[in-house]
C-alpha cells in the first residue's frame, strides 16, 4: 500500500486549468480574489460542499465542548442504542464508551490529519515538481527517480519500521507520515505543468532580468497555477483522510487517541459491532469520512468550474 493518488486524472494531465482564455470572458478588471468570490457564490457545487464541510468542522470544534466525556471512558451503560438523553445521542460502545464523544473527537483528529498531511504533501510535491520541471536535465532525472521510488515504496512496511522506534504513535505522527507518502503524483503533475510554463516568454523575461530560480518559481510560475495548486491541496486533503483511515483499520493507527478510522477498526475487529447489531457504532465514522471526502471532491469540481471559465455551467 502506498500513498493515495488523485481520484481525478485531469490533475495528472497537463491541460489543467492554467489556460484561462481571457478573450472569452471579458470580465471587468476585478481583483482575482473578488472575481473568485464572485463566481464562488454562484457555484452550487462549491457552496453545497462548503456547507457540508462547515457543519462537520463545527462538530469537530464544538462537539467536544458540548459533550466533554472522554471518548475512552468506559463508565457509560454498555451497548446502549442512541437516545435523546445528553451524552448518549449516538449510543455507546460495547465497553460503554460514548460514541458521540468518539465521533466528534475522531472528526477533530481526521480533519487534523487531512489538513496537515495534505499541506505537507502539497509542499513536498510542489518543491520537487517545480524544481524538476523548471531545472530539467539531471536534476529532473534524479527527482523523477526519487518520485517513482516513493510511489511504489510499501508504505506499510516503512510505517512499521518507523513506528517500531516510537513507544507510541500519535495522531501527529500519522499525519506527518501520511503527508510524507502522498506527494508523488503531485510532483509529477506539477512538473508537467511547470514544463509547459517554463518556455513561456514571461519566464524568459524574468530570467533575462536575472532573477533567481526560486524567485521566478514563486513570483512567476506558482501564481500562474495558484488555482491548480489549491485544487491539488483539496484532493490531497481528501486522499490523506482515506489513507489515514486505512492505516487505522489495519491496526497501525494512533495508539491512544481517537479517529474515525479507529472507531471503525474497534467496532469491527474488537467490538463485534456487526454481529451484535451495534450499527450506531460503525455507521457514523464511515458516513463522516464519506461526507468529508465527498464534499472535498465536489468542492474540487466546483473550484475547477470557478477557476476555469470553459467549464462554468450556466
Amino acid at each position, binding site marked *: 500500500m502506498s500513498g493515495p493518488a488523485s481520484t481525478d486524472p485531469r490533475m495528472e494531465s497537463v491541460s489543467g486549468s492554467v489556460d484561462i482564455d481571457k*478573450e472569452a*470572458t*471579458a*470580465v471587468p478588471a476585478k481583483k482575482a480574489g473578488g472575481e473568485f468570490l464572485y*463566481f464562488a457564490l454562484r457555484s452550487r457545487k462549491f457552496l453545497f460542499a462548503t456547507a457540508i464541510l462547515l457543519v462537520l468542522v463545527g462538530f469537530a470544534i464544538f462537539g467536544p465542548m458540548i459533550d466533554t466525556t472522554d471518548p475512552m471512558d468506559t463508565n457509560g451503560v454498555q451497548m446502549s442504542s442512541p437516545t435523546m438523553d445528553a451524552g448518549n445521542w449516538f449510543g455507546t460502545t460495547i465497553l460503554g464508551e460514548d460514541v458521540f464523544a468518539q465521533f466528534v473527537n475522531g472528526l477533530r483528529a481526521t480533519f487534523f490529519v487531512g489538513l496537515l498531511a495534505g499541506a505537507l504533501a502539497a509542499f513536498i510535491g510542489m518543491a520537487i515538481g517545480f524544481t524538476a520541471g523548471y531545472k530539467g536535465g539531471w536534476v529532473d532525472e534524479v527527482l523523477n527517480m526519487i518520485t517513482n521510488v516513493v510511489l511504489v515504496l510499501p508504505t506499510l512496511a516503512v510505517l512499521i519500521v518507523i513506528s517500531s522506534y516510537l513507544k507510541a504513535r500519535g495522531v501527529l505522527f500519522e499525519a506527518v507520515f501520511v503527508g510524507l507518502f502522498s506527494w508523488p503524483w503531485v510532483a509529477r503533475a506539477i512538473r508537467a505543468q511547470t514544463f509547459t510554463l517554463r518556455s513561456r516568454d514571461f519566464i524568459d523575461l524574468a530570467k533575462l532580468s536575472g532573477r533567481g530560480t526560486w524567485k521566478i518559481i514563486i513570483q512567476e510560475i506558482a501564481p500562474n497555477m495558484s488555482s491548480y495548486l489549491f485544487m491539488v491541496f483539496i484532493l490531497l486533503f481528501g486522499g490523506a483522510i482515506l489513507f489515514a483511515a486505512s492505516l487505522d483499520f489495519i491496526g497501525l493507527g494512533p495508539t491512544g487517541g481517537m479517529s474515525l478510522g479507529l472507531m471503525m477498526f474497534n467496532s469491527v475487529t474488537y467490538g463485534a459491532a456487526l454481529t451484535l447489531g451495534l450499527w450506531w457504532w460503525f455507521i457514523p465514522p464511515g458516513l463522516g469520512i464519506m461526507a468529508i471526502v465527498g464534499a472535498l471532491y465536489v468542492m474540487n469540481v466546483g473550484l475547477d468550474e470557478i477557476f476555469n*471559465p470553459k467549464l*462554468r455551467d*450556466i
Partner: protein
Amino acid sequence: MSLQVSDLRVYYRTLAGDVKALDGATFSIADKEIMGLAGESGCGKSTLGNSLIRLDGRMKYVAGSVTLDGNALPIWDNTGMNEFRFRDLSVIPQYAMSAMNPTRKIGKMTGELLESRGENFAAIKPELLRRIDLVGLQRDVLNLYPMELSGGMKQRMVMVISTLLDPSLLIADEITSALDVSTQRAVAETLVSFRDHGFVKSMIVITHDVSILYQIADTILIMYAGKLAEKASTSAIINRPLHPYTRMLVSSLPEVGVRYADKKLSGIPGSPPSLLKPPTGCRFRARCPLAFDKCAEEPPFVEVDTDHWVACWKATGTDA
C-alpha cells in the same frame, strides 16, 4: 458581394451575466477581398470571427443576419452550419499549434476528417500533396504526429487542411501572434498566395497587430468594445483615419513585429469599458480626447466616403 453581415449581435453568457462582446456589426466583404480585423484584446474581433464559423458553448446569437454568396448562414444553428463549414467558409484558428489531434498521424486525421464530410480522400490526396509542397513542407508530414512538427510547420499544415475544400471565405484568427517575425512574414505571404491561387475567395484576417495587415490586407476593419469603429481601404486607414481611436491606434503603431500584448497602448489612457454593462452612447467616449456632449448618443456606422465607414460624431459631422 461575397459576405454580408448586418447588425450581428453575439453575446457571451457568463455567471456574471451577458458580455456584449459583439453588439451590432454591419459590413460586407467583396470577392477577392482580404479584410483585416483589428483592435485591442477584448474588443470582440475574435467573437466576430468565431461567430461566423461556430458559436461555442457560451456564445449566444442575439440578432442579425449573415449571408455568404447569397445564402443566409444559420449561424445560430450549430448542426445547420455544418454543411457550410469547411466547404463554404473555413477557419485557421488562433490555436493552430494545437489544432490537430495529438494522437493521430496527420494524414490519417485529415483523411478521417474528409471522409466524415463525405469527401473522397483518395481523390483529394494529390491536391493535398501539391499544397503541402506549396507551403514548403515535406510530403511525409502526413505520416508524422503533430508533436513531431515545429510550431511553424503545424501552422502551415493547418492552413493547408483548412483550405483544402476551397472555401469561399477563410477566417484567419491571430495566426501570426505566436510566431517570430520572419515566420509571420512567411505565413502572411502564404495567405495572400492562397487567395491568388484561388484556394479561397475572400478572407478575414483577425489580429491585434495592425502592422501585419499592411502587407496583406486590402481593407481594414477596426473594432472597439464590441462595436465597429471604422472600415476602409488599408491605405485610407493608415493615411486618413477618421475615428479618433483609429488615429491613436495608428499613431501609436510600433515598428513591425512588436505586439500590443507586450506594451499598453501608450497614447490611450484608461482601459476599455466593461462589456457586461457597456455605457450608452459612444463607447470610446471615456478615453476620447475629442469627446463632446453629442457623444452621449450612440454614433451610427455610416459611409462617409466611398467604402470608408466610420462611427464617430466628429467624423460624420454633428448635424448628421
